[in-house]
């Protein structure tokens, strides 16, 4: 596998592993969590997005589109995704940056060329490259090759995964990954399926697999009010982590935020969490303290 669909390569990422990191966002995810902040990374295919607030309604995109996939609907432009071939002509034509392309095919060499440029920052901070998404382990072979390059130049490597992947994908990257950020979303399998589209069995098994292989893992929990902040879930999560042994007693909370909402709109997708406000610090601290009381070293990503 020499290429993957990448939505973004972001330098100076400081919340995604040790040191200053470059995060490579892969496109495609086996889960579809309701709170997902990167909905553009759910589908594996490249997509065109439309940022309404930047549109000046000049109509240049209509003219440019060879497929007639852009239409004017009640004064607003919409992309017809059935017709759109993601040729990018509309994006080129739009001088206001109102049309964005989510995802482009990149080879391992191209990604490597982009991430190696920040070498001096990795060196000075102990940072490196984090693969994220979406689910990077859908492209495990690609990740393996990329990390091989990294390791040759002593650049730290980190995988950020939802865990719902083929165990072979995990085994493929363990030898070349310095660090894993592993999401635990909910301990109740039924609720897990309800909110993410899949049950959590495979995720929990993969967590065990990583620990069994002595991987360095930081577990993370996207903390969503009313969904996974209950006493029951806090207890169950703690129990699970304890069951994994000494090494797994750390948990980082990722407080729910609504920053991704605009991207839903841009992709003409429905956002189910409209009514749920971002958590305030006090509520986050309460959850954190509950984990601490249960013997879990809990931190909050800010």
């Amino acid at each position, binding site marked *: 596998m020499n290429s993957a669909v990448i*939505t*973004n390569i*972001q*330098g*100076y*990422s*400081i*919340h*995604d592993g040790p*040191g*200053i990191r*470059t*995060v490579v*966002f892969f496109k495609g995810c086996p889960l579809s969590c309701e709170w997902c*902040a*990167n909905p553009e990374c759910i589908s594996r295919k490249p997509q065109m997005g439309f*940022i309404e*607030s*930047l549109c000046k309604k*000049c109509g240049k995109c209509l003219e440019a589109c060879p497929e007639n996939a852009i239409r004017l609907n009640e004064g607003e432009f919409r992309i017809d995704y059935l017709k759109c071939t993601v040729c990018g002509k509309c994006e080129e034509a739009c*001088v*206001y*940056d109102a049309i*964005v392309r989510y995802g482009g095919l990149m080879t391992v060499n191209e990604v490597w060329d982009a991430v190696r*440029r*920040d070498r*001096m*920052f990795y*060196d*000075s*901070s*102990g*940072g490196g490259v984090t693969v*994220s998404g979406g689910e990077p382990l859908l492209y495990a072979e690609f990740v393996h090759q990329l990390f091989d390059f990294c390791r040759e130049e002593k650049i730290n490597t980190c995988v*950020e995964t939802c865990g719902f992947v083929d165990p072979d994908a995990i085994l493929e990257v363990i030898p070349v990954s310095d660090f894993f*950020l592993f999401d635990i979303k909910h301990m109740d399998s039924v609720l897990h399926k309800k909110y993410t589209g899949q049950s959590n069995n495979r995720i929990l098994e993969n967590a065990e697999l990583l620990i069994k292989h002595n991987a360095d893992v930081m577990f*993370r929990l996207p903390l969503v009010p009313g969904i996974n902040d209950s006493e029951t879930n806090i207890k169950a999560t703690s129990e699970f982590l304890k069951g994994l042994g000494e090494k797994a007693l750390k948990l980082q909370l*990722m407080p729910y*935020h*609504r*920053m*991704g*909402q*605009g*991207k839903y*709109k*841009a992709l003409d997708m429905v956002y189910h969490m409209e009514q749920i406000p*971002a958590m305030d610090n006090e509520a986050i601290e309460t959850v954190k303290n509950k984990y601490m009381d249960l013997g879990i070293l809990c931190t909050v*990503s*800010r």
Partner: protein
Amino acid sequence: MKKINTELLKNIDKLGLSERNRQWKAALKASGWKLFADREKWTVESWKETEGEDIQIRRARLLKKILDNIKIRIYDFDVIVGRLTPGVIGCATSFDISGDYIPDIWKDNSEISVTMDANIGLDPESLQILRNSAVTFRGKTAPEMTYKAWESVVGPWIRDAEKARLKDPTLDAGFFAQCTSTLMWDKILTRGLSAFINEAQALIKEFIDNCSTDIDRLYFWKSAVIVSEAAIDHSKRYAALARKMAEKETKAERKEELLEIARICEHVPENPARTFHEALQAMSIMGVCKNYENPMHNNPQWGRGDQYLYPYFINDLNNGIITIKKAAELLTELIGRWGTQTFVAAESFKESHQINFGINNIMLGGVDKNGEDQTNELSYLFLHLVGLLQLSSPTVGLRWNKSTPDWMMKKAMHTNMETKGGIPLFENDEVVIKHFLDDGIPLEEASEWCGLGCVYPCLPSRAEHYGSEGIAAVNLAAMLHLALHNGKDVNGKLTGIETGNPAEFQSFDDLYNSLMKQHKFITHRLFRLAAIALKEQPKYLRLPFLSAMGIQACMDKGQDLLIPDPDAAMFGISDRAIIDVADSLIAVKKLVFDDKKLSMKELLLALDTSFDGERGEEIRMMCFAQPKYGNDIDEVDMLAERISKDSYDIIRSYDNSPFRKYIVAREGLAWHYFGGLGVGALPNGRKAFEPLNDGSVSPMRGADKNGPTAVLRSALKAGFDESYASVLNQKFSSAILQSEESVDKLVAYTNAFMQNGGSHIQYNMVDTDELRDAKVNPEKHKDLIVRIGGFSAYFIQLSPDIQDDVINRSEHSI
């Protein structure tokens, strides 16, 4: 490595502003601006008394007259005495230096604009004094006479060039006489003014014994004696006032403080300082004297305050003479005083600097002549205190080198948070010292470099003529305007040379060569005018105090700063707007010559209507979409490198003999507002008269959309090695520093840049106003990236209600 008392660092972290310091801050807030005309009364009186005498003696006696008579005051919260006016933030004027420079005094409403946005009323008596002074000195001052000389050579060209912002208004601003601002603090503190007097008298004796004839030198030394004695007497006036106040003081504690003030002011600056307190008091009086001589001048620069003050500081602490609390309180008092002294500036100064307080600079850390880093506990205290004070002045720089301790870097980041950015800025010790060495300056001098104004590196041992002859900067963006208009500026005047109709340019090189021809014509002409100014100014102005106290070579040779000694003078210039020009040129290259999306005619039409015509907005967006410096895009970064080199070559090709060649040092300040006022719309997408890019190597505002590491890669790739200093403003939100871990990362980011040869960086915090503007003008804010773990988005792509969320959460995550 220096041995550091880490316990002391911890104690410094715990310090807050003392009650006394808070009282001063409260008084500062409550007092409002007030203009004091007192100085003008004495300058006029002295000038009449000394008519017919030598210019040096006249200037020395003028200062003495002020020091002997000007109203002085000690506030209840003062322990360090000596201030420019009796007001907490009083303003002073300087008609004797700048002539009739405040048009407001001739208006009927008796109001004078003292800041960008504050007017103050004047009582009729004060107004009369000011007018009288304006009339007395009108037409007899150095800047006025220099303009006359310039006009006799180039006619109205010089005014036209200034209007087109091809050069900065240094002369008009009264800033021209700034040949040094850092006094010889070490000598003043360790030897006292009595040593200066003895030195001058010995030289006078030698002059007479040797039957020397160069009378100018005799007058210099005589004037040095006059001003030294006057400074001592001025200090003693404070001593007498303090004693008088002590007699009436009922509170025992304050009475003792006043008596202490008196004792100290009787001892320094005449004699060597013995304690930290005495050292600061000596500096305070000397600083005030320097600014009485020329109020429209930088406030006294601290230079390497953490070095020459360190022996007093650490000795007093170790011997129980002072507590850290008390030391901090005293130091705060002087930092605050020098950070708030003001003057009434000329209009053009306000435009070009956006401030009216005297800039002053503290340069912390850095190596000694053996290459060993000298950061100490006092450096740390300075940072802590400027963090507590949160004033816009002083400018604080940190001399970064490979041995700068990590605790200092972390403290620097915390101070940036406290002050909302910019303090301290980081300058690369190794880069600056190497430049000086390459230019033949001995290491022991080079290693003592400090900051002038903001980032301009200067040597305390040499007179710095950056801007002193009225030429501090040339504006490459204005020159590009000339190249795009066959030599005509934004006002339609032929201030450049005719380099051909741009619509007929056959290639990109035609345009590029035309720009460089304009550059050479303008810059070399300005250098010639500077050489004329050099001859003119000393006829009308001398600075005996600054000369005697600032530069040893002046004393040794008996020669004023304004008459530079080729061995002891440095000349410098800032060639501005390189990035605006690089982004503009690449846009023309691509749109007109490579991709042929526009004809030169179409582009020029859009520019000349400031993108307001029929296709204006579309063309502006096309311009915006071209590659921009700051995104690690080779073609534009390399073009920036080429412009930087060629500009340097033009500057260095000017023969400045018998003096050193001009050095290039690209500083920032708020000049981009001023510079923009003379430049029409640019092909980088900037509209006419809008500000140019800030800093000197910062990317175009909002155009660095590949994130902060790409900005540094661009800057390093373009190199800008020709310049002693460059200003790179990097924008972050306070969110970037929310945890200790994030602080470490910003330190690592800074270290990486500096280790790879970056010369300067400073951090500005994004504020909510900017985010609000991004909602309205998204094209100018493409750089705002939301940083949350596992998430990626540009601010302008967020939906409007979420943007509001981010704004209301006070920029948590950008």
